[in-house]
């Protein structure tokens, strides 16, 4: 490997990351002494404040894809990268206005708790669990795939075997966090990571600001000069197909409130008022962070240059780390690298808790054992599932190493928006929604979004596809949202109007509970 592409001091990077692991592990062990009941393991005892949970949600949401990916996309494609962050932010209003509080009041641990509340338990719960696992798997794969590229850049490990070993270490660490800490420990890891991430990005933003006298127009001047292209300030560099961009925008804005690992976080607070406060905190912090990435992206273009970024081992994703190196040398790069690793670790841990909870609570306890399992046994199954999912994530991460992170995350958003959100909204707001409607919408949304992706240019038929030599792409768009989201809403309606089903008692309980909080799950007091 040529020395020119290796930046920073590998030992320093590893040392700072090691320090992060030690400190967070210490905290996880401290806070997890009480981690025995199901409510502890799945929902952190419902004892987090709205502010704490809001910071943790921020930690969960600002994954490697949004930190490294968006900064990189702005550095390379200018304005089009910014469009991504707007969709990711505005999406939170759906969660704030329509979902967070009602969900908190209605459910216990998982998304399926709410969806199956007034419908037929087993089929709806199964479908919700299948969708939870599917969305989490794509999201998980995206994070693990990103780990490989990051390793290449930050630790100077360029051979596949070395990268695979590091992916395995990251996965094993994550399993340790989840097993020891459960939701409580994981939440603290998210909080620490979010604070570090926003602090690091904030320092870099101010640094770039000082260089340009806080004049963003001057920053743009330099970015244009470096790029040799004034079009970086305008939309259209990355998204050539107009319909495709609208399709992506639909998936982004409707995906967030259907992400199971985001929804599950609302159960970690004691009341719906605290759930509201969580989202308010999350919106402010996430918005602030995306404003930082706007400066960081154009700053990386102006100070590092897109040619140097593309040539670096991590490609587009290396824009933020390279900018850190340019500004603050080895130390700042080390800190930003450690934050990036921590990001992957924390997000993967959150996804693993969600997936293991869904399997143990929904599929094992409710569907297979029909609710006859003791909570202790259920948590035992959840822990074992977490180990299995962690192992699968390691294998998947090694296999997906080098795949485009942003594509995999956009895929997860598209599936969440198509398969989950329509059923969530219908079951919270539409009296005549039925089991058939839920099943048609959930399975229809999942199948249609997956099929359209398989037959899209992302998978085959173009130079940037997963299989560039194969050609079976008859669907012209990269993102299925514009078809699969309306289809799923339609199927939910169609299934409901063709079936007579109404559980008046459960519907009354769900509606009263969702709006008043009467009968909602209480916090655990130790």
């Amino acid at each position: 490997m040529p020395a020119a592409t290796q930046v920073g001091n590998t030992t320093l990077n590893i040392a700072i990351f090691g320090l992060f692991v030690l400190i967070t592990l210490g905290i996880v062990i401290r806070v997890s002494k009480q981690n025995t009941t199901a409510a502890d393991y799945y929902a952190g005892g419902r004892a987090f404040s709205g502010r704490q949970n809001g910071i943790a949600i921020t930690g969960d949401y600002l994954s490697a894809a949004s930190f490294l990916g968006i900064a990189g996309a702005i550095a390379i494609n200018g304005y089009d990268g910014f469009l991504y962050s707007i969709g990711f932010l505005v999406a939170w209003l759906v969660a704030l206005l329509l979902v967070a509080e009602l969900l908190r009041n209605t459910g216990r641990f998982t998304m399926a708790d709410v969806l199956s509340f007034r419908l037929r338990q087993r089929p709806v719960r199964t479908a919700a669990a299948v969708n939870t696992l599917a969305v989490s798997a794509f999201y998980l794969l995206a994070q693990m795939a990103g780990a490989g590229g990051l390793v290449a850049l930050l630790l100077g490990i360029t051979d596949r075997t070395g990268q695979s070993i590091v992916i395995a270490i990251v996965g094993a660490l994550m399993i340790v966090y989840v097993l020891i800490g459960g939701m409580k420990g994981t939440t603290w890891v998210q909080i620490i990571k979010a604070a570090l991430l926003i602090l690091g990005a904030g320092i870099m933003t101010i640094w770039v600001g000082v260089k340009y006298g806080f004049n963003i127009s001057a920053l743009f001047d330099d970015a244009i000069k470096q790029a040799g292209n004034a079009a970086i300030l305008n939309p259209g560099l990355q998204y050539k197909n107009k319909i495709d961009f609208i399709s992506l925008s639909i998936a982004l804005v409707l995906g967030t409130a259907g992400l199971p690992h985001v929804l599950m976080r609302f159960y970690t607070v004691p009341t719906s008022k605290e759930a509201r406060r969580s989202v308010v905190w999350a919106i402010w912090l996430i918005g602030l962070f995306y404003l930082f990435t706007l400066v960081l992206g154009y700053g990386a273009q102006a100070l590092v240059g897109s040619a140097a970024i593309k040539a670096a081992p991590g490609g587009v994703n290396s824009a933020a780390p390279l900018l850190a190196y340019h500004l603050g040398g080895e130390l700042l790069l080390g800190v930003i690298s450690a934050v990036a690793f921590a990001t992957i670790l924390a997000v993967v841990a959150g996804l693993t808790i969600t997936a293991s909870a869904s399997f143990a609570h929904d599929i094992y306890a409710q569907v297979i054992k029909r609710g006859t399992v003791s909570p202790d046994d259920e948590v035992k199954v959840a822990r074992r599932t977490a180990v299995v999912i962690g192992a699968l994530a390691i294998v998947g991460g090694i296999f997906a190493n080098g795949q485009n992170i942003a594509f995999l995350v956009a895929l997860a958003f598209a599936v969440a928006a198509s398969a989950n959100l329509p059923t969530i909204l219908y079951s919270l707001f539409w009296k005549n929604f039925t089991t058939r409607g839920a099943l048609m919408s959930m399975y229809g949304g999942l199948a249609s979004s997956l099929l359209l992706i398989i037959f899209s240019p992302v998978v085959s038929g173009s130079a940037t596809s997963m299989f560039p030599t194969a050609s079976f792409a008859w669907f012209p768009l990269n993102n299925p949202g514009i078809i699969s989201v309306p289809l799923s809403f339609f199927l939910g309606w169609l299934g409901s109007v063709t079936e007579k089903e109404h559980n008046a008692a459960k519907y009354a309980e769900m509606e009263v509970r969702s709006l008043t909080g009467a009968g909602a799950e209480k916090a655990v007091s130790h």
Partner: protein
Amino acid sequence: MSSHNDISEERAARYIAVQNSQEFAELRKTFRKFVFPMTGLFLAWYFLYVILATYASDFMATKLFGNITVGLVLGLAQFATTFAITMIYARWADRVLDPAAAKLADHMERGNLQ
């Protein structure tokens, strides 16, 4: 902890009574009258922005001053409206929704719903 599909008849009757009460109907109406139009508003504004970015890129590229384009200002305006709606909703929910829900919960406990 009650199993979900097996609530007692008495409990069911109580929830149905609450759901049919005028007080609950008002709470639901208050909530929906706020969140539905707000959702329509921000979605319409977001998609207007998306459509401008895709179909009116020349307009978005218009420079207002220095290198500051219409596109940048409208993009930042999306941030501003998201923050504003968040604050407006949180304040409204604290002032209007929570007291109404608390009053209803209190009446449910005392059994004197209107």
